[in-house]
């Protein structure tokens, strides 16, 4: 298939996220992604969806999240649409080079999701939609 259109809809709760895993695996099978690329895809989608649920919808269930997968110029692209208030996870991640975290106590247990998204996604794009947000995450097809 040159231009598949796949759609997956879930509700805004963390317990829904595990349903996405087999869907991503099936897409990865279709395009022959490596184990490491599958790891990156699962990681980025989980972090992006968790952001929508926890920050976009503030952990309130009952809101839709729609994912679409498509192939564009040799890249498998996931578009994640929600109807939450504006929330752009593509804001620059906290500086990650200069200073070493001082101690175990100074490490923030949360807040790694966006950093991981930036590190493991092939490409990342945020759009504000008229009634929500769209995050597009791309992975080059091998």
């Amino acid at each position, binding site marked *: 298939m040159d231009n598949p259109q796949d759609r997956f809809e879930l509700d805004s709760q963390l317990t829904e996220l595990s349903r996405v895993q087999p869907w991503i695996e099936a897409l990865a099978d279709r395009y022959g992604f490596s184990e490491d690329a599958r790891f990156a895809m699962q990681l980025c989608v989980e972090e992006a969806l968790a952001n929508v649920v926890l920050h976009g919808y503030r952990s309130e269930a009952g809101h839709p999240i729609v994912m679409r997968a498509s192939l564009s110029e040799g890249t498998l692209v996931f578009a994640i649409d929600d109807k939450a208030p504006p929330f752009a996870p593509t804001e620059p991640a906290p500086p990650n080079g200069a200073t070493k975290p001082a101690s*175990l*106590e100074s490490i923030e247990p949360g807040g790694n999701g966006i950093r991981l998204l930036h590190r493991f996604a092939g490409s990342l794009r945020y759009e504000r939609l008229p009634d929500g947000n769209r995050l597009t995450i791309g992975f080059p097809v091998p």
Partner: protein
Amino acid sequence: MTISTESMDGGITRVLLDGRLDIQGAAAVDLRMNVLAGSSKFLLIDLSKVSFLGSMGLRSIIIPAQAVSRRGGKVALFSPVPMVEEVLKASRVDEIIPIFHDLDAAVAALC
């Protein structure tokens, strides 16, 4: 996701995690991890059977490690697979909780 423990010489508790440390996996081990953090002085978290690690899974490691450290104990991570190690490095956890691939070195660092 399963979690089991093993007592080692030197008062070290080795925690063996097995499975995907994603949101679901993290929820499955959090309570047990926190109990272990409350009762162990030296914690060796064995990640060799962990096939996936996300930010929620990182929390399941960092929060217990902070609790152990607060009580004057030490925590080390053992033998993560390469992609799991990448996640630990991308989030800079490796700079605070040491990662070992050699068991003797991990034990020496804890005691």
